[in-house]
């Protein structure tokens, strides 16, 4: 019974080496994230003040605040959600519950997955061609929301499909077997269970849209605007685009101002993710409570 000796046996050693490797990999993943966040928080927190959050920029962003950019990003996220959520969920329902499993459906599924891999500037050019020029929405909040919605759709449909597929077949059968119609089954059995997954997916898609710079560049984002957009057909400011311009095109801007914009963008995205998490947790608690 030499328990101590076993700790250095080759088998034990190998075990510990691999354990160490796995931990190392995890640390390598986490450390840059922590550094980025720390950097942004430390450098940016001095800039954040009530004035910075509530005033319009002046002197090409060197002074004043970023209020219009914050509001513009919120409008953009809402617009994206408004267009991508219903279409994404309906498409997800159709593809999982109604579409027959044939080559056409498989082709559509493949196309949707590839849609997620299309570079975002391509979406921008698509939006410019279709929404701005053909539909004559002009450079506007509406055109930008629609463009970002197209990009978000790939993710919304994919996550909706996964959430719907995860609902056990037994629940569908239980509902159908007491004479509920297919739609009633989808509406009252499948969707309530898939809802947390769908919400999580669309909020993630939305916060990704909030961070997009390239597509909105060509469909309606403006660097400096005197006020807030008054209608969906107005141009708008947005945080990521603002960050890009002050960093790349405004010489002599205080560095901390850039970090401040980055911090605000991060907080906007993070707050949406927290909301999604809370909704998901509450849904789960209600189910098993």
């Amino acid at each position, binding site marked *: 019974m030499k328990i101590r000796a076993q700790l250095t046996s080759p088998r034990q050693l190998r075990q510990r080496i691999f354990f160490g490797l796995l931990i190392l990999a995890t640390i390598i993943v986490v450390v840059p994230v922590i550094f980025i966040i720390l950097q942004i928080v430390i450098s940016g927190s001095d800039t954040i003040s009530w004035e910075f959050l509530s005033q319009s920029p002046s002197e090409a962003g060197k002074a004043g605040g970023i209020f219009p950019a914050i509001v513009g990003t919120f409008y953009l996220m809402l617009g994206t959600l408004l267009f991508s959520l219903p279409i994404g969920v309906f498409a997800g329902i159709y593809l999982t519950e109604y579409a*027959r*499993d044939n080559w056409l459906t498989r082709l559509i599924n493949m196309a949707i997955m590839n849609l997620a891999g299309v570079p975002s500037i391509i979406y921008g050019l698509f939006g410019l061609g279709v929404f701005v020029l053909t539909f004559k929405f002009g450079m506007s909040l509406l055109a930008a929301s629609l463009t970002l919605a197209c990009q978000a759709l790939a993710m919304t449909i994919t996550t909706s499909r996964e959430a719907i597929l995860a609902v*056990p077949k*037994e*629940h569908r*059968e*239980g*509902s*159908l*077997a*007491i*004479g*509920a*119609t297919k739609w*009633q089954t989808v509406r*009252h*059995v499948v969707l*309530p*269970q898939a809802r947390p997954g769908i919400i999580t997916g669309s909020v993630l898609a939305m916060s990704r849209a909030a961070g997009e710079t390239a597509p909105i560049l060509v469909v309606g984002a403006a660097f400096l605007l005197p006020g807030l957009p008054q209608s969906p057909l107005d141009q708008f400011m947005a945080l990521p685009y603002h960050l890009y311009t002050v960093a790349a095109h405004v010489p002599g801007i205080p560095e901390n101002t850039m970090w401040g914009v980055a911090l605000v963008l991060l907080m906007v995205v993070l707050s949406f993710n927290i909301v999604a998490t809370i909704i998901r947790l509450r849904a789960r608690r209600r*189910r*098993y*409570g």
Partner: protein
Amino acid sequence: MMNTKYVLSNDKVSQYNKVKVRTEEVSLYYGNFQALRDVTLNIPECAITAIIGPSGCGKSSFLRLLNRMNDLIAGARVEGLVEIDGIPIYKRAIDVVELRKRVGMVFQKPNPFPMSVFDNVAFGPRRHGKISRGELTDIVEQSLRQAALWDEVKDKLNQSALALSGGQQQRLCISRVLAVEPEVILMDEPCSALDPVATLKIEDLMRILAKKYTIVIVTHNMQQAARVSDTAAFLMMEEDRAGVLVEHGPTSQLFTNPKDQRTEDYITGRFG
């Protein structure tokens, strides 16, 4: 307990109970695979009919023929006649939703929805039209009482159904079916996921329900078939794995004096 009111045999049918469900030369295909061949069976009203047979002989497939659950499987095809009260249910003009209201189904694994006990039982009635809260409360109570579950859950109607025990969940699923007032209840190995005590409770319940409902149960457990059913049908598969009906008769006769050698081999444990 054996009910010998009717004498049924496959070739010569003479019974006292009315025939509720009738199949005539029914074959079922999944794509190129034939799952059932020429099954002709008369299922008596207000009695329990057990379908027994070795694994893979098509028992569950046969059960799912009777409420057209096989429709959900891509490539499933039915030939022959299936009648309920003399109405062929595979005719084009049949409303599948109405059919399933009349022919409810209880599954192998208890499958309560992740909602409250009340909402589970109220699920069917709510889907089938406007109904007042008072009526709904009555239906839920009655259905739970019929399923011998009321006393156990009356104080937790608003709690999640997933918090119930396995046996309670299965009885909840039975009350969920009862709430839509079906005429036929199909049970697909309803006790296979339950412990012996819960199993006996379900069997007692089935005997009570059989006074009002036509019950068809698929079971792996021959003791269960012998204990609970009035008539029993033995299915087995032929060389090409298609299920055929070997024998159908009063349970007491099928188990004590089977007419077919293959039935005898099966119930005495010589194969399967």
